[in-house]
């Protein structure tokens, strides 16, 4: 039980030597700890077997080396990953068969196993994790602890100053002061729309109705986005602490995490985190000796993309069909059971404890004019280093895709980067120097979205990609409003004609007209943004559409009916 900030400090001090050992990047000593990534990517590649084999082998040899499993390091392409501390010696693509050699040579013998180290494009082995180019160019703030601590042990989170921001808020800040700090930091919603978080909280605080609720939107539905999954799996307590602080700031006593069913591992880790936080007295009544009480429960999504839209999410969380409703009223005024409700995304909430701990000035000092802090991007598709990348807002797309992401494989040419999932658009290769911030992306006709970047190369057909996203939106339409239910399907039919070699140029005009109409008239964000991907590909790749229509040819060689 933690009854005060002093109790938190005591745990932190007790675990300090263990944690500090993991932070001695580049200063190796006798191997004392091995961290093994158990994020979804590494787990699917077999990291559980590596973990088991390591424990067995170390025990058999009677070595004094601790083995800990952590959340996602972000370099999913190279999994299963493991790091030996002190020093941070970085092993990639491990399997259980490598373990005896790793234990014998490195853990017992003190000599790193060169053939298991990461090798860069130049073929040279890199010894330390922080020297790997993929990590060196990142600013890992929110992701920093995901590959550093055991996500199933609340004490390791506390050892990294966890729950101290909450303690400070409860001990020395008025709720209004907390909101003021978040507002000044410039934090904006990481789920897609980029609404200022502090303002959202202020609305909910000012609302007169009670009780109030905090909802964490963990329904990461954008295909190709997985940063929230990594946070939930790798550092779930950061999200809980963010929710607690939000609850204190707006005067809410209950919180719900709406998490999608496709993430069973995230659900498991959240359940463990909530249970541990309750046992530790960090959820429940009179938290840390204050008169503030707060509890958190999980709500399970059930496979409906539209539930990422906040009004649909609320209905779904109340056990109904996830059908959106028009706004206003906004959830901050009328949310769960008609009461004021703050809905924040996972990454947004994970930023909150950091802002309180390090000060709003620190946060506002990262990023650009109106886009502050860092942003985590998931890069996937035609890219060498698939994984999660955290960089300051305003970093150029080129840095993320070419430098950190390692560019397009097999010498093929970059064609475009799709951002913002089914609500976003495509940025063509010649605009790759755009700084990634909310405004710059909007100018190019796309959105930040939740941070999924899908890299496309010359083997991908832009019309086919547009059709893919639009068909997705059509399938996920809840069916309430006509523009989305019928209009999107009409657009898919036109795209079918184009990719099937049966279209005329008047089809292109109709496609654009429909796109504009749906954007203006659909009920919710899903419908309003569904045509974006068509409008953006028409804007930058009209020639490719025209080749399909006039020459009955698919330049990328994807559309089967057009292959001669």
């Amino acid at each position, binding site marked *: 039980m933690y009854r005060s900030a002093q109790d938190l400090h005591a745990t932190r001090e007790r675990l300090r030597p263990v944690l500090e050992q993991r932070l001695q990047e580049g200063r190796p000593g006798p191997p004392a700890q091995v961290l093994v990534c158990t994020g*979804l*990517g590494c*787990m*699917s*590649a077999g990291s559980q077997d590596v973990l088991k084999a390591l424990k067995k082998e170390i025990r058999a040899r009677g070595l004094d080396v601790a083995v800990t499993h952590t959340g996602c390091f972000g370099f*999913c*392409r190279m*999994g299963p990953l493991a790091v030996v501390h002190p020093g941070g010696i970085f092993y990639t693509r491990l399997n259980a068969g490598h373990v005896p050699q790793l234990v014998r040579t490195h853990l017992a013998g003190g000599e790193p196993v060169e053939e298991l180290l990461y090798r860069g494009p130049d073929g040279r082995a890199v010894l330390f994790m922080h020297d790997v180019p993929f990590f060196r160019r990142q600013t890992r703030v929110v992701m920093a602890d995901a590959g550093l601590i055991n996500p199933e042990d609340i004490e390791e989170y506390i050892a990294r100053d966890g729950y101290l921001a909450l303690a400070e808020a409860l001990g020395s800040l008025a709720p209004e002061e907390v909101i003021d700090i978040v507002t000044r930091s410039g934090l904006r919603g990481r789920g897609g729309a980029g609404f200022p978080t502090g303002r959202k909280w202020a609305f909910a605080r000012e609302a007169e109705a009670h009780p109030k609720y905090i909802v964490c939107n963990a329904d*990461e*539905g*954008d*295909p*190709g*986005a*997985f940063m929230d*999954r990594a946070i939930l799996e790798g550092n779930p307590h950061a999200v809980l602490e963010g929710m607690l602080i939000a609850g204190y700031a707006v005067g809410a006593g209950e919180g*719900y995490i*709406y998490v999608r*069913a*496709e*993430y*069973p591992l995230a659900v498991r880790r959240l359940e463990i985190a909530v249970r541990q936080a309750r046992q530790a007295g960090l959820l429940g009544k009179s938290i840390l000796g204050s008169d503030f009480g707060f509890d958190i*429960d999980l*709500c*399970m*999504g*059930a*496979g*409906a*993309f539209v539930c990422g839209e906040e009004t649909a999410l609320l209905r*779904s*969380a*109340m*056990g*109904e*069909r*996830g059908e959106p409703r028009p706004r206003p009223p906004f959830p901050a005024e009328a949310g*769960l059971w008609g009461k004021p409700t703050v809905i924040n995304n996972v990454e947004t909430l994970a930023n909150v404890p950091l802002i309180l701990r390090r000060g709003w000035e620190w946060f506002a000092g990262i990023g650009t004019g109106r886009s502050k802090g860092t942003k985590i991007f*998931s890069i*996937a*598709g*035609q890219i060498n280093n*698939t*994984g999660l990348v955290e960089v300051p807002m305003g970093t150029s797309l080129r840095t993320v895709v070419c430098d950190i992401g390692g560019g397009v494989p097999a010498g093929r040419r970059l064609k475009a980067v*799709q951002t913002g*999932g089914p609500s976003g658009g495509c940025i063509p290769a010649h605009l790759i120097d755009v700084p990634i911030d909310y405004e710059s992306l909007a100018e190019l006709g796309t959105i930040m979205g939740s941070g*999924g970047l*899908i890299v*496309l190369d010359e083997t*991908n057909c832009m019309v086919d*990609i547009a059709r*893919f*996203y639009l068909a997705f939106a059509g399938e996920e339409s*809840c069916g309430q409003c006509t523009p989305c239910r019928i209009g999107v399907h009409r657009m898919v039919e036109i795209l079918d004609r184009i990719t099937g070699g049966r279209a005329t140029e008047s089809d292109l005009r109709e496609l654009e007209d429909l796109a504009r109409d749906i954007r203006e008239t659909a009920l919710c964000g899903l419908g309003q943004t569904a045509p974006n991907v068509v409008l953006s590909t028409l804007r930058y790749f009209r020639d490719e559409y025209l080749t399909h229509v006039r020459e009955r040819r698919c330049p990328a060689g994807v559309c089967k009916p057009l292959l001669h």
Partner: protein
Amino acid sequence: MENRHYLVLDKFIEHYGGRPGGLVRILYKAQELFGYLSPEVQAYVAEKLDLPLSHIYGVATFYGQFRTKPRGKYGIGVCLGTACYVKDAQAVLERLRAALGIREGETTPDGLFWLHTTRCLGACSLSPVVVVNEDVVGEVTPEAAVELVRRCREAEKVEEVERVPERPGPPRDARAAPPGP
């Protein structure tokens, strides 16, 4: 067997019945117990929660995770998230269709395989991805997908040999069979 499932479900309904989003959790549990949400199970939940059957049906059919038809023991899901799509998950799906002789959403006549597509599993770094029941398998070629099916069949043969006739195992009729592990 069935009765025992209902007893477990009763306990679950008692616990989650009054809670927000409880219905979704209850339907998950029912699906886990019975394999799918049959009209009988939906009616049972409706009665227990004192909600109209239309409400239960509305929720059960709104969400992609709920099934109102029985499925095979091995669920083979092909992820059709964007990252998988651009890495040609379609080819994997087509090969599986051919190998199993069914289309997505269908179960093989022997009740063994249920082919389906999934939304993004967030395992984009391993794309294209196939999920066998709960296990995510990455970087799957069409050939590797067929190999997965073969391995399931082999596991099944082993189970068949090990199965003692008297042992009260899962019913052989796929309609009542619980989902795989």
